[in-house]
Every structure is written in structure tokens, then in C-alpha cells.
């Protein structure tokens, strides 16, 4: 078994040290180690491989916009070793067969562990429970259930879902959007800008009121709730209150909600159309503070590829969503590390350790210690790069960061000892 030595690397941004990889595990951490192949990692950081709780891979159904292969490549290039593939595919991942198919395809491609998310309700209808038990007991061993894209708005269904997943140690990941307060047409943060631009408003309270209800339901059922893509300061307050009372609630924030504000909608460019919508700067500040103090547990990309022809419409009629996998770490570096809100150990916690724990993803988000699985990412924190949509691995180009120069670059990604990415490119061909 040949070994690879990362010489002079900084685990979690700490003091430089040598890390030896052998087989699928970390074989040594210390000074003056030697290996069959030596990589000079001076100046580079070593983090546990990133884990995304919220990825849209679009397969099956919209393979013209993303496939499990292209999405896996984007994930690996972004430093991820595990991603959760959302259930709103066509057909919907609401049964054991579909989730097994997605997991199997992910394993075949082998660039990243693809963990399927199961639908909460059959066909995402919000009416009756999907076959949650069958998905949990399947070979895909689903542990995260979500109707993401739609809110489980019916209180009774939400209660039942929270209760029903308990035997499986699973979590309900809620897309918090009261459809009576923010319907399908709602597309812009309700405030002075939406009023002036004449865009249908998506008020903060439509998210906050659902989160407030759901934390009470989680408390009542003593079950686990995860709040997807938190976007408002009010939601942060509710989460802080619930956590203070010991409710088993976790939450995620997207990179785009940590950086972009609703002012960008002035252009009416649908590249900035996302659900929940971009919010004002006060919300962005509150989200950063909440991620820093742990009220928000995780960063999740909500990577949502869309074809150009689904975005080349009037703002209100274009598709919701933006790419995120390849830019996530850099956006977090800019908004959280660059501002002093988090150190790199904190980034590892929010982008790997905690999401792995929430999704019950074994072998990921582990400490960088001897004997641990070698799921790692090597990052150059000093390097900058400029986002070019066409150069991204995704089959779609809908990144709101096009043309931006961002800090921190993924140098290599390691999945169970195998380099899925080395020197910025996917090591293996993926478009087979």
C-alpha cells in the first residue's frame, strides 16, 4: 500500500505539520514523517472534506442542467466529499427505488458520497407522507427528509413527519415558506425595493412564522428539525430562543445569503432570483453573526443549476436558484474568515463537522487524526481566483458570482484516500 505525505500542511489552519495518508485513512500526523509520494503542502490548509446538506443534482429529470456526474465533479472541485441530493427531481425521490438509484449512481461516479434526501410527502404534494420508512431502511439509508422547494405547510403533516422519522434517527429539513404569505409568485424580499420595482413581495414573516411553529412542533414531538436556507434576522432570533430551550433544531445558511443583498434585484436580472430571496444588509449581518456564534450550525449551498433558457425570462417568470458548489468555500472565506468572524477551524466545523452530524454521514467531518478516514480538502487560503461560469464543472452557468475575484482555492480533495481533485482539476473523467 503506497502512502502520500502532505508535508508542512496546516490542519484546520493550525501549526504546520506532516500528515501521512495510507490507503483510505490517515496513517500519521506529526513532524518529520516520510511517505512514498511527498506533496509539499507548505502554506496550505487541511480541512475535513466539506459536507453539503443541500444540493440539487437534477438527476433524474433535468439532466440537461446537471447530472449526478457533473454535480459530483462540481462538488469535488469545491472541496466537498459528501453532498445531500435534494428530492425534488422528476420523478420525485419519494420511494426507496429512486433514492437507491441516486445513491448507486453517485457511488459509480465515485467523486463524492452522494447521500439522497427523501421527500417528506408523496410527490412533494404536502398532503400525505412519502414512504419515509422504506427510504430510511433502503440501501441508500436516507436520514434527511425534505420537500425542499416547497414548505410542509400543513401543521398536522409536519407534526406527523417529525414523529414518524424518530425511529430512523432522521431529521426533517424544512423549507420554511408560508404559502399564504409568500405564494409561488413571490420572488423579491418584501420591502422598499420590491415596492418600487413592482415585484411580488416575499416577506420575512413568511419564513419566520413557519420556523416559529416548527420549533414548537419539534419540542412537542421531541424530534429533530433542520431549517433550510435561513434568510432573515427574525428567524435567527427564533432559532436562538428555541436552542436556548433545548429544542433539537439545527439550521443552515447559504453562501449567497451571507454575501449578496436584495439591492442586486434593481437590474431585474434573474441570476439573482433565488428562494428564499436575497435580503437586506441587516439580515446578512445577522446571518453572519448567527453562523459565527453557532446559532446557525452549517453552511449549505442550495446549489440549483438551471438552463439559460429557464433564466432568460422576465424576473417573475424565471426559475429560482443559483449555483453554489464550487464557490461556497471561497464565499465563506470572504464573508466569515476575511471578516474575522470565524477561523478555519470554525469553517471546518460549519462546513463539515456539523453538517455531517446533522445528516448522520459516517466517516465525514471527523477530526484529522490517525486512523480516521482520509476525507479531506487541501486549501490555499492565499490564492485568489476569478469565477468564470463556463469554466465551472456544472452543466449550467447560473452563478451570481460571475466575474468576481474570490479568496481561497481548493488545491486537492481526497475521498477515502483517493484524490478526486488535484491541482484544481477533477482527477478522473466524469462525463462518461
Amino acid at each position: 500500500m503506497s502512502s502520500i505525505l502532505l508535508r508542512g500542511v496546516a490542519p484546520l489552519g493550525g501549526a504546520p505539520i506532516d500528515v501521512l495518508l495510507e490507503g483510505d485513512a490517515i496513517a500519521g500526523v506529526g513532524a518529520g514523517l516520510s511517505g512514498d509520494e511527498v506533496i509539499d503542502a507548505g502554506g496550505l490548509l487541511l480541512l475535513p472534506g466539506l459536507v453539503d446538506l443541500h444540493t440539487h443534482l437534477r438527476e433524474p429529470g433535468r439532466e440537461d442542467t446537471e447530472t449526478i456526474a457533473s454535480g459530483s465533479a462540481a462538488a469535488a472541485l469545491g472541496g466537498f466529499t459528501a453532498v445531500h441530493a435534494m428530492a425534488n427531481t422528476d420523478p420525485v425521490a419519494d420511494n426507496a427505488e429512486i433514492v437507491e438509484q441516486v445513491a448507486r449512481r453517485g457511488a459509480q461516479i465515485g467523486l463524492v458520497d452522494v447521500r439522497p434526501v427523501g421527500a417528506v410527502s408523496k410527490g412533494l404534494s404536502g398532503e400525505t407522507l412519502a414512504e419515509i420508512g422504506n427510504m430510511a431502511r433502503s440501501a441508500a439509508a436516507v436520514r434527511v427528509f425534505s420537500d425542499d422547494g416547497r414548505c410542509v405547510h400543513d401543521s398536522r403533516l409536519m407534526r406527523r413527519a417529525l414523529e414518524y422519522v424518530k425511529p430512523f434517527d432522521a431529521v426533517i429539513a424544512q423549507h420554511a415558506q408560508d404559502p399564504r404569505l409568500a405564494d409561488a409568485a413571490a420572488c423579491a424580499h418584501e420591502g422598499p425595493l420590491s415596492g418600487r420595482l413592482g415585484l411580488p413581495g416575499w416577506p420575512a414573516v413568511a419564513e419566520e412564522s413557519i420556523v416559529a411553529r416548527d420549533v414548537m412542533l419539534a419540542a412537542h414531538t421531541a424530534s429533530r428539525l433542520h431549517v433550510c436556507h435561513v434568510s432573515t434576522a427574525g428567524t435567527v432570533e427564533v432559532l436562538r430562543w428555541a436552542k436556548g430551550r433545548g429544542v433539537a433544531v439545527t439550521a443552515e445558511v447559504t453562501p449567497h445569503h451571507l454575501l449578496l443583498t436584495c439591492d442586486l434585484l434593481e437590474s431585474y436580472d434573474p441570476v439573482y432570483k433565488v428562494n428564499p430571496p436575497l435580503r437586506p444588509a441587516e439580515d446578512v449581518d445577522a446571518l453572519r453573526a448567527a453562523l459565527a456564534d453557532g446559532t446557525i450550525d452549517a453552511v449549505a449551498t442550495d446549489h440549483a443549476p438551471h438552463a439559460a433558457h429557464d433564466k432568460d425570462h422576465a424576473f417573475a417568470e424565471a426559475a429560482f436558484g443559483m449555483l453554489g458548489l464550487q464557490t461556497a468555500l471561497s464565499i465563506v472565506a470572504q464573508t466569515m474568515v476575511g471578516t474575522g468572524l470565524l477561523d478555519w477551524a470554525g469553517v471546518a466545523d460549519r462546513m463539515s463537522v456539523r453538517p455531517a452530524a446533522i445528516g448522520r454521514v459516517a466517516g465525514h467531518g471527523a477530526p484529522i487524526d490517525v486512523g480516521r478516514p482520509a476525507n479531506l480538502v487541501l486549501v490555499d487560503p492565499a490564492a485568489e481566483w476569478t469565477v468564470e461560469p463556463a469554466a465551472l464543472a456544472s452543466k449550467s452557468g447560473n452563478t451570481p458570482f460571475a466575474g468576481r475575484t474570490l479568496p481561497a482555492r481548493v488545491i486537492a480533495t481526497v475521498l477515502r484516500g483517493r484524490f478526486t481533485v488535484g491541482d484544481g482539476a477533477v482527477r478522473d473523467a466524469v462525463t462518461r
Partner: protein
Amino acid sequence: MKNLLSAADLSREDAVEILDTARRMQEVQTREVKKLPPLRGRTVVNLFFEDSTRTRSSFEIAGKWLSADVINVSAKGSSLSKGESLRDTVLTVEAMGVDALVVRHHASGAVARIAQWVSCPVLNAGDGTHEHPTQALLDAYTLRGRLGVLADRHVAIVGDITHSRVARSNVLLLRTLGARVTLVAPPTLMPAGVASWPCETSWDLDAVLSGKAHGDVDAVMMLRVQRERMSGGYFPTEREYAIGYGLSPERLELLGDQAPVLHPGPMNRGLEISSLAADGPRSVVLDQVQAGVAVRMAVLYRLLAGPGEVPV
């Protein structure tokens, strides 16, 4: 000025020039032969993604009296229902050799987006609940006809402000021309963030019309209330709306004798406006329609022939 997308695109000088040009254009309307030659050989396409008889006809007549070839393209439902992107629809029309696009769309911002894709001038004939700049110009033209200068004049705009592109464009243009605006609506029909707009607001129509709220009113503009707003629960019944916010004969008496009553049409008689108000001596509703053609001639002329002397 390449496009006219928002009333905010107009400086005071631009607006005054267009209104002055429109006055010359209106003289043409009284002639036996109404055609002027300046846009001969130019093609103007009225690209309408939403039904509109009056705005489309007004633009069509305006273009024809300037000797342009005017083509009406009804693209209602074409993009999405056929699976075609808006961009493809618009580039297809432009590729036929178009000199200007007059666009009406049901979605806010659609016209601004179209202007980014095409190279010809684009004129916003109403985009969703955003803006309708030529309506604001024809309203200003009509008001000038009745009130003389607009500086320091006070205009009340009453009705569904939230969903009104007419109100948005009027607030911007009247402000540019130095007038004061007060918006009147129930709280459910006031847009988010209206407090940051350059105008006053009130929930009390009687207080505004009597001058008690924000000073004497020189003109009142009643907005159409879409009946489908009822299903959105914005107000309980038509009856209650009419009692609270309709321009009844009694309310008409609160206005000065000379204060004109405007309405962009089509009117819901008995809902937002009584027949006495709509047909009475203060009503300038038909003047607005007439002004519409003149103003649109002036705008088409400005965008296609550029600034300068009008060959009338």
C-alpha cells in the same frame, strides 16, 4: 435617450421637451390630413405580451401619423406556453428588421430586460406592476392643459397603489416636474416601503380631498381597482371600497371647481368613480386619451428621430 423604460429616465428638460413636442403634435390631430412624414420607412413593432386595446391603439395611431410602418405583434402567452424563452421571442421579432419596439408585458422589469437584449430603442408601454411612463407623460400633459405649470401643484392619486404602474410612473414624473403627490389607499393596497417614496401618503380620502391632510388638492387621479384584487382579500367588498375610496358625488364637492379628475381607464363606474365624477365638467378622462396619441407621437419622434425641431 435611447430607451424609455421608466419615468425616472426623464430629466426635467427631457420631460418638458416631450410635452412641448406633444403640444405641436396635438395640433395635427385637428387637421384633415393627419400624417406627418418624419418616420417614413421606419418600422415600429407593438410587442404586447398582455392584452391592451387602448394603449396599443394609441401607439399604433401615433406611429402611423408619423408615417412609420406599425406592426402589432400579440405575444400573449407565447414564450412560456410554447417553451420559448422571452429572449428568443424578442430576438426573433428584432431580427425581422425593427427600428423600435413598443413593449407591454405582464411582468415587472420585463421591458428593461428586453432592452438589454436588443439594439433598437425600446419603449415601455407598461410592465407588470412597475411602470407605465407614457401614461405619466399623458397625465402630465393633461394636467398642464388644465393647471398651467405643474410646479408646486398638488395631485392626489387614489386607489390600488400596490399594483399600479400608473401610480409609480406618475409619482416619479410629477416629482420631476415639481408637483407634490399624495397617494391615498387602504393600508392593504399601499406598496411596501411607500414611506421612502418622494410623496405623501394617506388612508383617508376625505381628509386629503378637503385639504385637511396635506393641503389643498389641485387634481385627483382615480385608479382602476382590478376586481380580482377582491379574491386576494385586499378589501372586504366592492361596496365598502366604494364608500371608503370611491369618488362619490359628495366627495367631488370637496374638490375645488377647477380641480380636474383623471382616470387612466378603463373605469369601474360605481366602484372607484361615480358617473357624476366621470362625466362631469371636472373630468378630463377623454382629454387624457387624446393626449395619449400626441405624447406617444412625441416619444416615438424623440427616440427614432432624435432631439431637435419638429417638422410640423
